[in-house]
């Protein structure tokens, strides 16, 4: 009894998601919201605000600095886990 209900649910939710894909902007479309106001703003402001030329590094270490701190913590945690499991003598 549960199996047909699950399959129906998957079909309904899946079709809703599939139809909503049609309304998304095309990949790398120049008229998508991300390319019309977000990217030009970063490109214009990168040298004024961050003072460096590399846009990727500026986004990574200045505007999205919190995210990079989290990444560094994840790598630190991975290292601590490896040392804790395999490092004992």
């Amino acid at each position, binding site marked *: 009894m549960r199996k047909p209900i699950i399959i129906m649910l998957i079909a309904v939710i899946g079709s809703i998601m599939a139809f909503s894909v049609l309304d998304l902007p095309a990949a790398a479309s120049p008229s998508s919201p991300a390319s019309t106001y977000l990217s030009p703003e970063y490109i214009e402001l990168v040298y004024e605000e961050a*003072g*460096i*030329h590399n846009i990727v*590094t500026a986004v990574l*270490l200045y505007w999205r600095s919190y995210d990079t701190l989290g*990444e560094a913590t994840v790598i*630190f945690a*991975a290292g601590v886990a490896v040392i804790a499991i*395999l490092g004992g003598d």
Partner: protein
Amino acid sequence: MLYWEGINLKSNDGTRDVIVETIVRLIIPPIQLFGLYVVMHGHLSPGGGFQGGVIVASTFLLFALVFGLKNIEKRFKELHRTLLDSFGVAFYAIMGLVCIIFSGNYLDYQAIPFLSMEQMVKASIILILIALGLKVAAIVTSIFVYSGKEGV
């Protein structure tokens, strides 16, 4: 196949290959220099702390593959690796706290008043790039060394 016959991961008891060792000795310094270049020029060219750190770490992996895991302790000690790894994260977090002390937001480098605003942001980014590079180099080496330990 001949390449792998000269390498004994668990010890360095006489099974050596002169060609491999010589080439590795020659090739490690340029690779490390390139890794440091990628870290130091992370604000100008493609790359950055994570990528440069992995390039530097790859030389230690090469060293461990050819000269044995025991000998890596002489070049990059366990204590130093662990300290550098902790230092990277701690430096990054303390950098954010310093911004709070000078009445800015967390990780808002403009608030630090030692240099002009853009200069301070640039200096902070370069310092954090170096800290991240050291940290990634240390932790990737550590993961390799501990994964290759005897009995695992």
